[in-house]
């Protein structure tokens, strides 16, 4: 079978949204780190983005069916590396999440797991070849997600672990779960949450999960970040305080304004107008992705794209929700906005696969 891939079929519209968000990201990182020791993070982010774009183009040339073929192996490697992180990982900020590689590169396996899970679940639901989901299938799918999830939670990195869940949910939904099965699952999950709350979660994780409900109860403690974030967003008003002029951002009141709370910094400096513009870009990007999913050449292509959509909307919802006080602090970065190599690489690799799915739509 011959493939005729052409950049004429490359999704330049999607590319436009990504570039726009990346530019906004670099500018806001510049503003947020202006007076801090992280002053060159905007340049570093540009390097990561450059690497991301290159990776995206490279991956867009690789047939996603090859990825589907090697997905099982990749999944195995992922589990091994997650175990390795727990054993030999570098401890940063109280969590073991990185593996130090020669050359000063820190490798965070949990981001790659996301990508592999998207592909491996797409393969799993495709292989059901159209029959209805049995309980066995459902449990298999759940197990595939929950095992790496527990390993990541053990690091502990609750935020990243949670991003695996939407992949499973969208997979089950599109894979054809029945309403009755879904209802039973939902009930079981909520029952399972009770012991999980008391046994699995560490106190600080619980505090972070609950403090968003009443940040003023402990303004110097776990509610501090939420409170400062709310002040930042709220004081931005409609038009914002202007670039490099946000007092919360520039005064170092806002915690990590270049990564997890970059949207708060952006809202403070550019107001509701800027925030709505960014959310609109996300909306257009996601709509474009769903459209790509619809036009995919085959079922696994659709499932892969929708897996990416699931991860992105989940991260956007949780991150922005956290910044505006609707969600707990979970440490989930905002895709295409937050500073950080692993996050950038995951997003662009995921988009690279999506590109390939789109470019392959007319290929036979």
């Amino acid at each position: 079978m011959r493939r005729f891939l052409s950049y004429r079929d490359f999704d330049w519209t999607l590319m436009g949204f990504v570039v726009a968000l990346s530019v906004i990201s670099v500018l806001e990182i510049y503003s947020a780190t202006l007076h801090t020791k992280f002053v060159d993070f905007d340049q570093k982010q540009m390097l990561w983005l450059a690497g991301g774009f290159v990776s995206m183009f490279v991956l867009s040339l690789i047939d996603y069916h090859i990825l589907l073929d090697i997905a099982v192996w990749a999944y195995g490697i992922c589990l091994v590396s997650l175990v390795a992180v727990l054993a030999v990982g570098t401890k940063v900020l109280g969590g073991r999440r990185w593996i130090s590689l020669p050359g000063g590169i820190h490798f965070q396996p949990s981001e790659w797991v996301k990508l592999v899970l998207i592909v491996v679940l797409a393969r799993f639901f495709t292989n059901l070849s159209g029959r209805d989901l049995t309980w066995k299938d459902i449990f298999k799918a759940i197990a595939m997600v929950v095992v790496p999830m527990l390993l990541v939670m053990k690091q502990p990195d609750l935020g990243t672990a949670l991003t695996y869940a939407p992949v499973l949910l969208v997979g089950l939904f599109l894979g054809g779960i029945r309403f009755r099965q879904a209802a039973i699952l939902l009930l079981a999950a909520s029952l399972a949450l009770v012991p999980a709350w008391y046994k699995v979660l560490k106190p600080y994780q619980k505090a972070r999960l609950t403090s968003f409900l009443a940040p003023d109860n402990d303004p110097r403690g776990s509610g501090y970040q939420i409170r400062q974030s709310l002040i930042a967003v709220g004081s931005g008003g409609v038009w914002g305080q202007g670039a490099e002029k946000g007092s919360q951002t520039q005064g170092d009141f806002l915690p990590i304004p270049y990564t997890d709370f970059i949207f708060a910094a952006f809202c403070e400096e550019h107001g509701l107008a800027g925030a709505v513009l960014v959310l609109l870009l996300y909306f257009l990007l996601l709509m474009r992705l769903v459209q790509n999913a619809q036009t995919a050449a085959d079922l696994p292509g659709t499932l892969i794209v929708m897996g990416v959509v699931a991860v992105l909307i989940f991260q956007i919802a949780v991150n922005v929700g956290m910044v505006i006080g609707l969600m707990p602090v979970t440490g989930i970065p905002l895709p295409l906005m937050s500073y950080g190599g692993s996050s950038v690489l995951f997003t662009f690799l995921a988009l690279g696969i999506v590109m390939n799915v789109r470019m392959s739509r007319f290929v036979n």
Partner: protein
Amino acid sequence: MAGTYNKDERIPSIKLTAIQYVIALILAILVSGLWRLQVLGAQNYRALAEANRIRKVPILAPRGKLYDRDGRLLVDNYPSVTCFLVPEQARNLDADLPLIADGLHMQTDQLHAILLRYRHQPKYQPIPLQQDITPDEQAFIAAHANELPELETIEEQRRLYPSNGFAAHLIGYVGEVSEDMLDDPRYAFYQPGDVVGRSGVEESYDPILRGQDGSRDVIVDSHGRELGALGIEPAKPGKSIKLTIDLDVQKAAEEALGARQGAIVAIDPRTGEVLAMVSHPTFDPNRFAIRIHRDEWNKLIADPDHPLMNKAIQAQLAPGSTFKIIEAIAGLQEGIAQTLKVDCHGGAVFYGRYFKCWISARHQSHGITEIGKGIYQSCDVFFYTLAEKMGIDTIAKWAHMFGLGQKTGIDLPNEAAGIMPSPEWKMRNYHQKWFAGETISVGIGQGAIAVTPIQLIRAIAGIGSGGVLKRPHVVFPNEIPADLKDYYQDRFPGSGDQVVPIDPANWQIVTDAMAQVVSFAGTAGFAHLDGIDFAGKTGSAQIVSNAYKASVGGGAKLNDTAWFVGMSPRRNPEIAVVVMWQNGSEGYFSARLAARVIEAYVNKERLRDHNLMQVAAKTNPDAGKPSSTVPVTVKGKSAPGAAKPKSIGQMQPPRVATASPTEMAALWTASVAHPEDPDAKQLPARIAAAFSLTKGTTLQAGTFLLPPPPTPRNGGRE
């Protein structure tokens, strides 16, 4: 190679559409959340952001200085460094406290108490920890800037008082506002940590002296680092106040009292201005201006001699024989004393009990005694008799008129009222009947009667001024800003300014007798001041009965209170002095102390020009009544033959000529342009002419009759 997948199998497009709707819904929720914060809550959050980053750094207002009446500096300020603690900047405040306490030479529990007091204040507000820190404490803070980022220092102006407790009770001291004051609605404008006047003028005039603290708004980051300044609200310095105190007179009074316990007050009877006020033992207010050590404070509080008590206005003691002046005026005004003649045999029997005259201790007696001798010889028998004839109600009535048993209303905190006993008073307080014998004791200023020195001198000065009593005060009324006039209107309740009509003849009898007191014939002959018209009255008030004193074997602590009230000149005095020497035994000892104060004043006044004052306009009332004077209508009986005056007790010499001779008082003995005395003050030509003074002759102090002037003059004191 990639596997093959069934291309026919498709996901129902409705599912993807559903996901699109879910995405749209999620984003809509996020936008609504943003709307809630950025549109509806924008104002609130902007205010929170402001509060987050703006810290008010106080700029403390320097307190107003205090000057004496001639503009000489009494109380100054000096630069001092205060240490503040900013709780927000602390990494672990509880862990740091022992180190802070050690470095600032404080106790850890002391720090806890301070923090507890400021617990309601926002964490970014600095808390004053220690004032006037020493250079080594400053070095400690500088050296620990990294370990203790919560410590900050501020330089401010602090109080510098005269050393050795000079005028300490009058001036008072400042200190941190107390919890009690903060609870008092009158002090609602005080904040915790404010330095406020806690005693004396510092307390009573705190609203004028304190000024208004300013602030510097600085932008800080979450670590308290200053990023920039927004604006400065400069401090409004407190207004300086000119006191009525005369530094020279105060100095003389301080030196006169020396190490003795007691009080001296000198006032200007014409206005009530306090020229000097001394109370001993004293304290060093500089110890309060900075922090006072707890032990030192406890020592001051527990001292049986009460060094913090301003005895000039707070000591309440029996006035002894000084009370006889009030009683004499009362007796004369009642028409009893003029004709009263008593034969003193060293004592007399009243109501079945033998009352001794003080002279019996010298195995002498006064013999036939009338009012004048009764005063200058202080004959007890005469005043026992007078008291018996008047009765307690009449005595109490006159004593009340002269302000006994009431606060004078002096503008200093915590004045005492004293006691003027009467049957009604005794029934009210002790539910007992008045015994007639008590009247006899009151007649010589003993018994339940108790006065404060300021009260006594106001009364005596009023009598000397012909019945014009003035509210003593230490700050010129025109020093009070207009907006605080109302505040001070009723701030110091008391008898204030009063006029007690006194017949001029009676006035003359008593004041002349008082002048005799300091003559060879009087009880204080050796307090005589040559060349100064000086009048007064001694008093030796028992604090325990002689019998009790003998039973415990005496002891200096039980000795009589030695009182003296004096004034110069004898009528319409310019200065009146009270000396209260606790355990000084004899009034004439105090008389010498008072004489020194009078002498210092007169010597000073002699250096001024035109030092004459009119004491009475005998005739032509219209001419003698300038608008600035207080005319007093005399209702009492005049001595036969004397010109009947319409107006007495003028505080200022008239500015228009009078057609008849005028009684004048001169305070000096001055040469008329003596060729060998270039420093001698020139007498006004009119005076020189009136007395036919030629070059080289001198005018003695005293009261004189001045012939009517040929032309109108602008006379008197400028």
